[in-house]
């Protein structure tokens, strides 16, 4: 493996470590699964194929059967589409919006900062469950609606954290110098602020990703988003929780799937090549 990392390092000029590479591989694996899932599921995702329930791993059902006797492997493979797709979409949108507004608020300051901050604070204090229910009642449910709802729930937190970081950087001498040079707001946030807060912002991105993966299952139980027979991974864990006392594969493997994805995303962020993570000299 070290040979591989060295090879990539020589070819690309990026210094990559083993943990980062493994994490990237896991993420890539799930991304591919998400794309080709319908082609590789051994059984239809909603079909009851085993008369037993919470069945053990066997040659017919590699990861056992769930609480109804459906094939867990097929359900996890199809679930990857929703968990990976929706979560990545939502977390990217939420962090992009939150961080951009946060930096803008820090750099522009004054009334803009005040109004935006107070507005998002107020928004953030509305319970997310109530918000979810209103969304379903008002516009119905679909995957884009789900992504936007999750974005709306998580963007204010991202804003607050990014703003707190950016405000500190904004008082630094090099920003004052740049401002004195007459640089525009866009230049300031892109060239001076962002590179200096990118580390914590990425860490925040990773955590928010985990939260979204987990919240997703809660929202599908509100009737928002992933519809039967499909289910996201969190929902798979939830619907099979009665199997926990027997350590049923139906509850263990979806948990592994969640952990493998969320840990990989966070480990990859922690182990990004220095060249990307750090402010350029």
């Amino acid at each position, binding site marked *: 493996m070290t040979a591989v990392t060295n090879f990539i390092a020589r070819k690309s000029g990026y210094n990559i470590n083993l943990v980062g590479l493994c994490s990237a591989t896991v993420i890539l694996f799930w991304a591919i699964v998400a794309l080709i899932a319908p082609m590789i599921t051994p059984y239809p995702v909603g079909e009851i194929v085993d008369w037993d329930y919470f069945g053990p791993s066997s040659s017919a059902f590699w990861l056992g059967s769930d609480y109804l006797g459906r094939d867990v492997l097929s359900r996890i493979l199809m679930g990857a589409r929703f968990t990976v797709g929706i979560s990545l979409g939502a977390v990217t949108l939420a962090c992009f919006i939150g961080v951009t507004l946060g930096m803008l608020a820090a750099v522009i300051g004054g009334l803009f900062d005040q109004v935006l901050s*107070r507005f998002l*604070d*107020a928004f*953030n*204090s*509305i*319970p997310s*469950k*109530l*918000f979810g*229910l*209103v969304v379903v*009642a*008002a516009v119905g449910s679909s995957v884009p609606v789900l992504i936007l709802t999750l974005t709306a729930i998580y963007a204010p*937190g991202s804003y*607050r*954290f990014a703003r*707190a*970081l950016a*405000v*500190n950087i904004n*008082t*630094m001498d*090099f920003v004052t110098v740049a401002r004195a040079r007459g640089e525009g707001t866009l230049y300031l946030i892109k060239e001076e602020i962002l590179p*200096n*807060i990118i*580390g*914590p912002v*990425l*860490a*925040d991105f*990773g*955590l928010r990703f*985990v*939260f979204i*993966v*987990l919240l997703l*299952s809660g929202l599908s139980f509100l009737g928002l988003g992933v519809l039967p027979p499909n289910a996201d991974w*969190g929902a798979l*864990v*939830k619907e099979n*929780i009665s199997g*926990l*006392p027997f350590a049923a594969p139906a*509850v263990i493997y979806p*948990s592994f799937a*969640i*952990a493998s994805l*969320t*840990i990989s995303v*966070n*480990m990859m962020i*922690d182990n990004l090549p220095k060249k990307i993570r*750090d*402010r350029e000299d």
Partner: protein
Amino acid sequence: MNTIILRLIAERLGVMLVTLVIVSFTVFAATQLLPGDVAQILLGQAATPEAVAGLREAMGLNEPAIPRYFNWLIGLTQGDFGLSYVTREPIADLIAGRLQNTLRLAAITTLISVPLALSLGILAALYQGTKFDRVVSTATVMIISVPEFMVATLAVLIFAVYLKWLPALSYANEVTSLWQLLKTFAMPVITLTFVIAAQMIRMSRAAVIETLNTPYCEMALLKGASRRRTVLIHALPNALGPIANAVALSLSYLLGGVIIVETIFNYPGIAKLMVDAVATRDLPLVQSCAMIFCFGYLMLIMLADIISILSNPRLRT
């Protein structure tokens, strides 16, 4: 205390009042958007048009919603939260006991999780790249990757069902001794610590490391200051702002977000009260709960902002 802090507090409290009213109105409007009113929900499957009309009349719901909202608001200025539509009891009575329970659980969780999380996070930053750092970082991500309901259910299975060390349910009203208090709260507190500590650990680690990369910290390191000294004397004060914000966001979860823990451990807190209120369309109760969450949240972030300003001398001007 200098004047800028006092001014900020005064300003924030003013804004807070306005925000509270806006939030309560938004929540009121949101609940109006949901299908069914309290009379329909209470009658459930028996909600025939005549039955609903009769009950509405009897509950005084025939007055339009908006005037009812403003009447409630006017009552609130005199310290009167109004009557619950469902139980016909004063809302202040309904909330008081539940709020106390929630605050008790939140306080114990805070006392345990915040010191733990911050010391782990700062230590991880101090020893960045070492085995300790890797173990802490990986473990925290692993812990939050497990769904909260699974942590709680697993804890009950292990400690209550198999080992029989701890009760499976956490009653708030049966506590007589400190030992019993610890036993009753152990599982909810462990579960909640799992959920909120990870965010604080990772954010404090990231913030401290980022500050270490700023020119003045690099300068301090170049001048020969030890890493430990640089972290504690130079980096930490400057990272306090983001850390305080991360802590505030995590703690705000302890007010309204503990619904899963309240459900699994059957703990009568305010999050469950709010969920009930939304489900029964008990508008005055929904509005009151929303205002309490909002107030708690705004207080937390105001504290975070004050810490930010105090910790960065340049922000004080």
